[in-house]
């Protein structure tokens, strides 16, 4: 409620300024704030949601500005058409840059984007037949300052609205999931690379729009406006305002536009000021001004809607019924790390609807096997097939899409997302819909969202996490994290669920509950389960079949009773020879 009032006050303030003053200087300052807001709102999608840093957005800003300027000044297009053209061009450029640059992340990406920005700047200066060289482009037909004021304010409001929609959509959650744990996101069928490209492209489109509007502000543009300093300013405004928060760009833009205006006398100290501000905001305002001001709100009782308490139907049942043969077959799989064989010539077949345990002493290659089967490691030899189709060479997210879900030895929940949102990422999987639909929150997108949320809630209720739905996932205790991870993996409706030591660190009561849940899953026709586990009581109680690994080799394979009496297994575990 207070939030809504805040936005209303902001809108009113923006509306009142031109009525109160005829001084064009003030209008000019507020327009600058609006433009910076549009850029940072877009940048927020990239930096705030996916956690990747770009220091080249001034280059994209330049693309927007020059495209619009050329369309308006040379081709004589009206302003709206020029802006639209700028958005389209910048999106395409952004997507191309992202496709190349996002093969790397983190500091590498920062560097590549800096390089991109400098290349653009260089081209603007050099290619004078088109860009006007160092002098830039003049005589862009500009609207009156007052008209432009309204255009920019409207655009800024729309930009904020769009990013707020995106944050709440499956796309927003996918971005945050990729930021929090790339590995876990890929295990749910999300391609981190693709998600980042889309986020980069969205931010490019916003930046392009702002650049185009900037061109119409002064009626001329020159390369001076699109330097590395500009890129740093964009990022600084976002960080100062509050990363990942919808209101962050507004706060940051206001502060960083007004501050230099107030301190024009200190022009020589501007860089010191920027630098200190950047340092201070990283130190003391990790969530920006907006983050520091807003109290963390606890969800006060979610309205419980009635849900059928049965296992939400998944892909697991239907497809399994008609098909024959084992679900997953691995034959002759070998993997070695620098000469040390982690897995050697392992054969394995997991039947549909069964619980198949993989056990063995520490270092026997169990987790490595799991990583090979889910595509995180590429085996040197052997073949793996799911339902008769080879999985060879597929990346993890593609294997997840085929129907293998997994958990991790150290539970990888998505920090920054609530418990329910964690499961929603699993429910949606790679089916995120069109990003434009998510931005404008189309009826289709909202219907999809409602469906996803009700499925997610159903999964939480099934696993007894319903009461914790609104808690931040990183606040959960270890046992609950594992449970959440299982709920999230199940939510992808897999054919095969691979659990990596789900009982590690659980209390006896929790293990008993896990036992019941696994058997219930089998009885209700859930997915096949591959269980890597040390806890023998659990393994012997639930498994249909057990494969024993030792030094990377499968030394036994069969039903629990046979395996229990196998001399090779006894030797491996007890070191006793018979």
């Amino acid at each position, binding site marked *: 409620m207070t939030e809504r009032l805040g936005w209303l006050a902001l809108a009113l303030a923006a509306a009142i300024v031109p009525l109160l003053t005829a001084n064009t200087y003030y209008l000019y300052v507020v327009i600058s704030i609006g433009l910076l807001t549009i850029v940072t709102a877009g940048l927020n999608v990239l930096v705030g949601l996916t956690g990747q840093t770009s220091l080249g957005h001034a280059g994209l800003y330049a693309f927007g500005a020059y495209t619009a300027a050329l369309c308006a000044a040379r081709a004589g297009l009206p302003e709206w058409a020029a802006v639209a053209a700028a958005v389209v061009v910048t999106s395409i450029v952004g997507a191309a840059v992202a496709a190349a640059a996002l*093969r790397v992340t983190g500091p590498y990406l920062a560097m590549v984007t800096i390089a991109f920005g400098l290349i653009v700047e260089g081209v603007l200066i050099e290619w004078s037949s088109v860009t006007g060289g160092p002098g830039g482009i003049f005589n862009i037909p500009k609207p009156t300052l007052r008209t432009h004021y309204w255009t920019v304010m409207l655009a800024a409001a729309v930009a904020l609205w769009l990013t707020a929609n995106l944050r709440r959509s499956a796309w927003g959650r996918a971005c945050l999931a990729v930021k929090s744990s790339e590995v876990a996101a890929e295990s749910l069928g999300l391609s981190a690379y693709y998600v980042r490209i889309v986020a980069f492209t969205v931010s490019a489109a916003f930046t392009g729009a702002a650049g185009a509007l900037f061109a119409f502000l002064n009626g001329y543009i020159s390369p001076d406006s699109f330097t590395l300093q500009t890129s740093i300013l964009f990022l600084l405004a976002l960080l100062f305002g509050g990363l990942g928060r919808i209101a962050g760009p507004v706060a940051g833009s206001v502060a960083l536009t007004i501050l230099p205006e107030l301190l024009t006398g200190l022009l020589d100290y501007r860089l010191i000021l920027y630098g200190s501000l950047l340092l201070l905001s990283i130190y003391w305002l990790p969530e920006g001004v907006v983050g520091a001001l807003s109290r963390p709100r606890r969800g006060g009782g979610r309205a419980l809607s009635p849900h059928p308490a049965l296992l939400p139907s998944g892909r697991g049942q239907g497809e399994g019924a008609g098909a024959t043969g084992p679900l997953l077959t691995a034959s002759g799989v070998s993997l070695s790390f620098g000469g040390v064989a982690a897995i050697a010539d392992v054969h394995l077949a997991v039947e549909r609807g069964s619980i198949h345990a993989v056990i063995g002493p520490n270092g026997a290659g169990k987790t490595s096997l799991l990583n090979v089967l889910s595509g995180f490691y590429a085996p040197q030899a052997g073949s793996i097939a799911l339902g008769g189709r080879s999985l060879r060479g597929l990346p993890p997210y593609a294997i997840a899409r085929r129907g293998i879900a997994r958990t991790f030895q150290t539970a990888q929940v998505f920090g920054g997302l609530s418990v329910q949102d964690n499961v929603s990422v699993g429910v949606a999987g790679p089916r995120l819909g069109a990003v434009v639909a998510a931005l404008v929150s189309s009826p289709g997108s909202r219907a999809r969202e409602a469906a996803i949320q009700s499925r997610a809630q159903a999964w939480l209720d099934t696993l007894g996490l319903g009461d914790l739905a609104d808690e931040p996932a990183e606040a959960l205790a270890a046992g609950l994290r594992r449970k959440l991870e299982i709920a999230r993996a199940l939510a992808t409706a897999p054919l095969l669920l691979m659990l990596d030591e789900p009982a590690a660190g659980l209390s006896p009561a929790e293990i008993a509950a896990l036992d019941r849940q696994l058997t219930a899953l089998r009885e209700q026709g859930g997915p096949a389960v591959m269980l890597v586990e040390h806890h023998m009581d659990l393994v012997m109680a639930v498994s249909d079949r057990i494969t024993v690994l030792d030094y990377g080799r499968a030394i036994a394979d069969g039903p629990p009773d046979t395996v229990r009496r196998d001399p090779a297994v006894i030797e491996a575990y007890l070191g006793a020879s018979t």
Partner: protein
Amino acid sequence: MYGLVALGYHITWATSRTMNFSQGHAVMVGAVVAYAMFVGLHWPFPLALVVTLVALAGFGALVERVAVRPFFLRASPAWLLATIAVGIIAENVAQLTFGKDARAFPSPLVQKPIMIGSVGFYPQELLVPLVGLLLMGLVQLFYHRTAYGRQLKAVAFNPEAAGLMGINIPRAVMVSYALSALLAGVAGVLLAPLLNVAPQMGTIIGLKAFAVAIIGGLTSAPGIVLAGLGYGLVESFTAGYISTRAREIVGFGLVILVLVVRPWGLLGEKPTRRV
């Protein structure tokens, strides 16, 4: 000559998986301090050099303390921005004390060029790669032959385990930053006579050095030195045959190309994904 600066990225990256994004500014600080001592105060060159190097090591330690340590164990890119912040502050301070204008740095090695055919170059230009190779050799020796160097490598591999073995990690990281800034200082002093000394010189040098580090592979010192030489050659050819401006465009285009084809660099180790 970029190889020398780029080596600085390698050193801190190898120890801490972080790096000083204002490495170029360290070069600038080196050049400015050396100028102040040598030209401003008329100190003898060796003394000016020693003071500069000590000052730079201090600068590196400061960067680590202020911009990296608070964020080192947090898996956040905050250090990236924090080091940039320190860099732009340093640039502004240099502007205020040194002035905005570029000044020439006198050196006996840039008095008259040596001519080979129609191509002329200064002895100083030969000195830069030689010193670069020498320092690379020293750095390699330090890492592979001394106990402390090996400790630094251990920190890079697994900070937690290294800490349990009694290695003082914050100090190790600080040392690597001091060392890295020191190299930048050497580069600053060497480059000062070739380029002119100016507060704004840092950004572009830092970027090109980073480009070199990426091309060569952040994890490989020899790769970086080779890439440094190669990059320098490509630059001079582009400048000679196309235009000075195209130099930067071609150079950074090259980086993007390398990243697309071989993101871990020409001689770098391919990172293995830990699951």
